[in-house]
Structure formats: C-alpha cells, structure tokens
C-alpha cells in the first residue's frame, strides 16, 4: 500500500523534474519528445535528452545506491549512525580526486584545473575509494568482530581525510576551488555515455544487496543465531561490503560525495514501514531514496532557475527536518537500543 503510493509519488515528482529548468518547455512537448516525436524547437531536444533526463536518472540512481548502501551498513554494524561513507569510501574518493586536482597542480603551475565530471576525475575517485575499501576489506578478513571493523573503517577514513587536508593546504587557489566544488556533489555532470556505465554498475551492486536480504534478516538476531540458522557469515559480510563499495563508490565517483541521504533514508524507511524485514526495507529505500534525491535536485535549482545550489547542502537541509520530525513523532530512534 505504502509502496504503491510512493511509486506513484515518485513518478509524479520525476515528471515534474523533467519540466523544471531554466528553459520553459511545455509538458505536452516533453511528453511528445519522450514518446519519440519531434518538436518545433531543436534545442529542447538537446535540453531534455542531454541534460534533464540524464540528471533525473542520475538522481534516481544516486538516491537508490546511497540509501541501500546506508541500509546495509546500518544493519551490518547495528549502528544507526552508520552510512555508506562510514568505511571511508568518500574519503578515499576525495583522496583520489585531490591527488589528481591538487597534487598535479602543485607539481606544475601550467596545469588547467580539471572540471568536475571529467573522466579522469571519475577514474581517480573510483580508484581512491576502491583502494580504501580494499584496505578495509583486507582488514575485515582478519577482524571477526563487526564493531572492530567499523572502528577500523572510521580510523582509516580519518587518516585518508588528513592526507586530503595536507594536499589542500599546499595547493593553488584555483585548483582548490574546483576541488571544493567537487566535494559539494553534483548530479548534473553525468553525461549520457557515462550513464551507460553507471547504470549497469549500480545494477550489479543492487543485485548483490538483493541476494543478501534474507541473510540480513537473520543478522537481526545477532551473529551466533544467524550462523545457527545457516547463514554463511563470511560470505554474507563480503557481499555487503562489496555491494556497498560498488554502490557508494560509483555514485561518489560520478557525483562527488553526496551526504546525508545514505544515513537518513534508511531511518525514514524504517520509521515509515515499521518493519524489520529487509525485503520491505530494501524496496522502501529504493523508492524513498530516489524520491528524496529528485526533490533535493528540484530544490537545488528552484530559487532563480539560473543558479544551481550544491546538492550536498540541499540533501541535508531537506533531509534533516524530515528525520527530526519522524523522531519526534515516534519518540526517538529505536533501532538497536
């Protein structure tokens, strides 16, 4: 019931987002273009298919990927503060990008500052988050306790962030600015070609998460009980880590670190659906995650139409009141006490 309602809402908001932008395009023309017919204004075609649609899809993917990885991290660590970045994924991506943007400009003055969205930045971010996750992952093979793993992940993340700070300290102003802009996140820099990479990759991450939902229900009872029910703890944990790195890692690579969604949406879903079943929570996170992301994007460009505010601050500004409201209505977040 709730799922159906959210799906309808998602469709409406998605449609609304396609009609919103600095250029006014009538709804009828948008529907026409989507169904394949031509329009009188050629640039509308470009605006819709090269900008608005890719951005909408990016928002949906980012929302889904970050929410599901947040859900996985919270359930794995039984910690309501965990999120997709808790294991240092965003710090790793930042380090990769920082080395590229700041480190190289430090070596040569002549270098042109890179713009967010370029393939080299995506690659650097991916490499950075991948390396940090590999590190966390290798630790996880030795560390049996999830909480120890969580603490190690946080420590590794902090160490990596310090490296980024050092790089920032020594870098030139112009490259520093483009780096800071990158850290604010953006949905608009993903091109159609890049989407054809992002979609299948996050698809794999979501399938991995999906295959692990049943096991995550058993984790609810703690490790011993989960194992006694036949859960392969090691495999399940590896799947969670792998899926989270793929999901959060690729979204961060393409859009920069987008905060808050990954922590808030799992809570919003839990409170709205009042269930411990990960099957339901998974579906709920997909819907609410993409919904919240699209709305954030809409708000980010709403004020004048010409400026687009950093998506990172919008996700926080609209997400936090939602969570606070839900907390008050439910008298506290009671997840694992």
């Amino acid at each position, binding site marked *: 019931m709730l799922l159906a309602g959210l799906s309808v809402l998602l469709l409406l908001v998605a449609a609304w987002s396609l009609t919103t932008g600095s250029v006014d395009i009538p709804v009828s023309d948008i529907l026409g273009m989507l169904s394949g017919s031509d329009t009188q204004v050629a640039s509308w075609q470009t605006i819709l298919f090269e900008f608005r649609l890719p951005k909408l899809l990016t928002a949906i993917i980012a929302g889904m990927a970050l929410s599901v990885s947040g859900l996985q991290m919270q359930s794995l660590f*039984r910690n309501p503060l965990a999120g997709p970045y808790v294991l240092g994924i965003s710090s790793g991506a930042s380090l990769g990008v920082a080395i590229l943007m700041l480190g190289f400009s430090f070596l040569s003055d002549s270098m042109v500052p890179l713009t967010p969205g370029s393939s080299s930045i995506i690659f650097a971010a991916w490499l950075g988050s991948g390396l940090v996750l590999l590190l966390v992952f290798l630790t996880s093979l030795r560390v049996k306790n999830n909480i120890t793993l969580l603490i190690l992940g946080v420590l590794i993340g902090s160490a990596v962030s310090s490296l980024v700070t050092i790089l920032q300290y020594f870098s030139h102003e112009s490259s520093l600015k483009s780096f800071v802009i990158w850290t604010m996140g953006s949905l608009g820099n993903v091109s159609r070609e890049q989407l054809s990479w992002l979609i299948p990759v996050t698809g794999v991450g979501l399938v991995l998460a999906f295959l692990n939902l049943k096991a995550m229900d*058993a984790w609810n009872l*703690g490790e*011993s009980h989960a*194992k*006694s029910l*036949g*859960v392969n703890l090691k495999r399940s944990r590896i799947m969670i880590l792998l899926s989270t790195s793929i999901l959060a890692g690729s979204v961060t690579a393409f859009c920069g670190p987008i905060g808050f969604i990954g922590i808030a949406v799992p809570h919003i879903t*839990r409170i709205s659906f009042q269930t411990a079943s990960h099957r339901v929570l998974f579906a709920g996170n997909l819907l609410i995650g993409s919904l919240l992301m699209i709305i954030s994007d809409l708000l980010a460009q709403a004020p004048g139409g010409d400026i687009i505010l950093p998506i990172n601050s919008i996700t926080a500004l609209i997400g936090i009141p939602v969570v606070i409201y839900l907390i008050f209505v439910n008298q506290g977040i009671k997840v*694992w006490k």
Partner: protein
Amino acid sequence: MEVNRTKIVLETRNLSIGYKTRKLSLPILQDLSLELHAGDFIALAGKNGSGKSTFIRTLGGLQEALGGQVFLHGKDLHTIPSSEIAKEIAYVSTDWIQVNNLKLVDLVSLGRFPYTGILGRLSKDDRRYCEEALEITGLNSLRTKLFDELSDGEKQRGMIARALAQQTSIILLDEPIAFLDISHKFEIVRMLSELSRLHDKCILFSIHDLSIAMREAGKLWLIHDQQLHDGAPEDFMLNGRLQEIMSGQALNIQEDTGEFYLPRKRNGQVFILGNGLAYQWTIKALERMNLEVEPTNNPENLTGVKVNEGFWEIYQQGKMIQRCNTILELTLYVHLLKKE
C-alpha cells in the same frame, strides 16, 4: 544391558574444546566422548567459565573444536555446510536480541530460514510449522506483538518457538533461564522437558542453577575441575559425586532432599515444641537467626518456643515470658532467650 535404547543423534569423539589464538590454544575440556540420543533432556551445569557455552557452541558447529570430532547423525560435523546443520541443530544463545519492529510471528518464522528460498518467502508448510511452534509454546495470542514489548519470559519462549519452527532433531540452549524469575525458570525448563519427551527432541541446555537441574533434568552433565561427569541427577547424589564436588565450597547439599543450603555458624540453642506446618516454618525462621533448633516433647522447664494454633509462646525455664502473634514478632522477641 541395552544402553542405546534410542537413536544417537549427536556424538563427540575425543573432543577437546576451548579457545585458539594465533599462537596457542587454551583447552577448557579435553577428551570428551559423549552421546546424545533422541529424547534426551540434558542439563549442562558447571561454574562460570567452566566451558558450558564453549561446549554448546562447539556441538552446534558455531565454534571450532581444538581437537577430536563431533558427529551429527554419524557424519562429521566439519564436513556439513552450516545451511545443512541448521536443519538438524537449533541454537538459542544468551545474546539478548535487540531489534525493533520485529513481530513475534516474524521472529518465529526466521526459524524456517534453512528451508526457504533466496527471498525467504514462506510456503504453506513453513507457515504451518510456525503455527505449531507458537501453539506449543503458548504464544498464539501474542503473535502480532513486537518482540521488544514482550516480557523476558515471553521473549525466551519466542526464541524457543523459533528453534521449534526450525524442525530440528536437536536443540541446544545456552542458559535459557538465566535472566528469568523463579516461576518462569521452572516454566521454561518444564516446557523444554515436555518437548523432549513428547516430540523426541534431543535437548541440551546449560544452566548454573544446580537445584533446578537436579530436580528437572533427565541427565546431568556436570563440569567440574575440567572434567565432565555424566549421570542421572540422582546418581550424582547416591554415588557421592555431587557432595564431593560441592566439598570445599560454601554451599552444602541436603542428602535426602537434594536441596542446597549455606551452613550457618550457630550462636545459641533453642528448644521447640509443637507440630504441623507452623512448626516447620518456625524452625526455618529460627535457623535463619543462626539458632540451633532442638525439637522437644517435654513442656516442663522449657527454654524455647512453643508453637500453638495461630500464636507462639516464648518460655524461659518453664515460664511463659512472651506471646507472639506472628513469626515476625517471634523473631523480634526471641533475643530475650539468647541472653541466658
């Protein structure tokens, strides 16, 4: 004599259990060769740190043995994948489950985990087993309640229902009654004993309350001095092993009733005259006050307590010095005697 009157479900051969670190292994119990049969109801008792939990976890395949083997239906447990073990051995740990929004019926249906497909959808049979489990544990009326809102006893019954829904031949429970009040303790143990008797399940549970183990268990496995002793609870009394184990400890055991008590230092003696229930309880009260209580039939020259119908009298050399209407009053005035 036919010992193996029932089927062996679980067996250990030269099993040693304990903890392994990278450098050394710390055995807690060694060379265990034991059999568990269908219908067994075994209490595993021993002090804290004696290895009860480790033993149970090793039997359930949740922890590596240091040496030796465990056989499940004749097959080395080590060679069986955990998804298959889960169809034969259910486990209820001491871990306190802390999860929100989990309905009791959903908790119980997690017991069907080993049998459901990749999505965990329940079949008609799965549902039927869950219903049975709820029925047997008497939780039917609480099915839609959230686990969080149940009492400790109900939670424990819920965990047992989950283990039942798992439809295993063996149920291992680690301290299932540790945090319960006394009546729930007996209720849970009695329910488990019925399960083993009526459903031919092999149930092994650890417990540190020896007096309940002595009273309710079909077999007692008592860990003492890194040895596991095996027998009926009554055997432990008759062959003196329990007394031997208890010797050197503060707690003593009453040889005829099997009750445990802490011996007291006596400081004073009191004679008591009377009969019936009030008489029995008066003795208990006086003993609690560290008095040595001597029964007597002779009212002449009595120095002590006379138990009457509904009241008590304190006598000093045959003279009544105080009349009391309750045992509480008696305990307040009995010091009048002690001065002598």
